[in-house]
């Protein structure tokens, strides 16, 4: 490989490797931490294939491992989803959560839960249907005036989001029985239902989406100059943006149906990575996946260990870390 080629590829590999190491460290710490105390030994024993049979080994590998893995997939998906929406709308504030896509998907999921469907594939399908519906409503609302497309889409999204929240509260207030607590807890981001079968099914759903998005990462660079410019440089704008929106909605709704609404990851991670690594989406795509995964594993570990009893929803932690961090970054990047 020639020098210039390997310059980009080398950077891609280097960034990925560094973030992979961070993710691995964070995952090991997440596995070692819990209400049973901090213990590295069973994690290391498990990684080397020894120590089976002990209670701690079971806690780490049967209970914590699926959950840590779920947190990683969730963080990767949300962070990457935010990056794609930001690239397509050319707006660093765009994110599935803010645009109401997650809200629509939550309505679908709640309906699924109320209908008594199983998490996979029942609730996932109703959730996907919900997010597709909001995506279509957004499209129609925003495309009425083509000139201010991006701004309109963001404003429409805020409205769609508000409407979705109202419907969610309506559905919640209509629910009386034990499902109420389930729904409320799930809404704020609940990872406690993780079991290894479901997590693998989620992984099988989202990882191909990651690959598809990566293949369009250079096109996303060209989108930064505007749709007209992207088109004049050979991008099939309509096909590419439709594909990206669909794939992103698919993977985001899959995670929403599992874990509920977790905000700010899609906003904070791509923004932070862009400040550190620049705007090239060929680098940002793997970085968002790995960085988002690491961020959410940290947040989940905190959510499990901060309260003295029980745990809190991970959405609370991401919002409490994410919102001030975002304001700080915004201020810093403006000076």
């Amino acid at each position: 490989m020639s020098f210039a080629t390997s310059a980009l590829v080398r950077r891609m590999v280097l960034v990925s490797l560094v973030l992979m190491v961070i993710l691995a460290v964070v995952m090991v710490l997440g596995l070692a931490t819990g209400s049973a105390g901090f213990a590295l030994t069973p994690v290391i024993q498990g990684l080397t294939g020894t120590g089976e049979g002990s209670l701690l080994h079971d806690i780490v590998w049967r209970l914590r491992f699926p959950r840590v893995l779920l947190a990683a997939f969730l963080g990767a998906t949300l962070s990457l989803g935010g990056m794609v929406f930001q690239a397509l709308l050319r707006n660093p504030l765009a994110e599935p959560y803010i645009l109401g896509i997650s809200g629509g998907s939550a309505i679908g999921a709640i309906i699924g839960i109320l209908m008594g469907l199983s998490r996979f594939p029942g609730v996932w399908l109703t959730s996907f249907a919900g997010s597709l519906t909001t995506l279509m409503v957004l499209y129609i609302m925003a495309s009425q005036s083509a000139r201010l497309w991006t701004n309109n889409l963001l404003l429409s999204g805020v409205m769609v989001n508000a409407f979705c929240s109202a419907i969610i509260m309506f559905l919640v207030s209509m629910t009386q029985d034990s499902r109420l607590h389930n729904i409320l807890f799930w809404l704020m981001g609940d990872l406690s239902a993780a079991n290894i079968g479901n997590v693998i099914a989620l992984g099988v759903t989202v990882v191909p989406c990651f690959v598809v998005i990566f293949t369009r990462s250079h096109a996303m660079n060209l989108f930064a100059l505007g749709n007209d410019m992207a088109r004049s440089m050979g991008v099939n704008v309509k096909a590419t943006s439709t594909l990206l929106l669909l794939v992103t909605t698919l993977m985001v709704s899959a995670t929403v149906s599992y874990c509920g609404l977790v905000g700010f990851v899609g906003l904070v991670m791509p923004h932070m990575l862009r400040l550190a690594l620049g705007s090239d989406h060929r680098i940002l795509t793997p970085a968002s996946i790995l960085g988002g995964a690491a961020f959410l594993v940290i947040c989940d570990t905190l959510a499990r260990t901060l309260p003295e009893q029980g745990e809190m929803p991970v959405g609370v932690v991401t919002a409490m870390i994410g919102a001030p961090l975002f304001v700080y970054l915004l201020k810093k990047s403006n000076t």
Partner: protein
Amino acid sequence: MTAISVENLTQSFGRRTVLDRICFDVAAGQFFIIIGPNGSGKTTLLKLLTGLLSAQDGDITVMGRCLKDYNPRALAQQVAYVPQNVLVEFPFSVTEVVLMGRAPHLGMLGVETPEDLELAQEAMMITDIIHLADRRLDELSGGERQRVLIARAICQRPRILLLDEPTSALDLAHQARIMDLMETLKNDHGITVVMISHELNLAAMYADQVLVLSRGQIACMGAPDQVLNKELLERVYECNLMVDMSSVGNYPRVHLVPKRFLR
């Protein structure tokens, strides 16, 4: 050889007809400048030529092939486009933006070879932005950004270059530089340059052909010394002008006449 051929091109937005049965040819290797008052349909015409808008009626042929038969990538290998202005939200570096021009010649991930990097360097050199190579696009002035976009279009290595008022944000020196550059691209590389401009005098100095657009129709087309005459321009622009010949070369010079001198 004809680079672009336009036949009976008609485009309307709602009830307003922006272009009304336009016909013209642009010969290959020409410097072709489109002038006309605001709202005369210049930008719409250029967007139709780039395939950004699809024509409601009429035919456009680019390099002997119907525009509709091109896919975006094949068209981008023939035609590059520089819009009036571009807002970039994300902090791409100048080199990154210039390299984007290579996209239609590269694979899906757009991984650049050393040759692509050389082409980008060369494009930055001739547009006088090589010293800005590592700067972020959003830190640059309007004129510098315009030159980056032109460098990107040159890097695309098109047969036809379409520009929408590229000199409007530039100071005199850079106006001359860009126009000289277009002339060089035309003479040395055989590139057909089609440009919209409000600068009648730049059109007079550089154009092989000038097309005057007025209310969606062609008011006149031909060499600058034929087209840029007082009667026609006063009628099209609805203002008072004086036209004489430049002492530098044999091209017309258009002056505005302020109202206070009209009595």
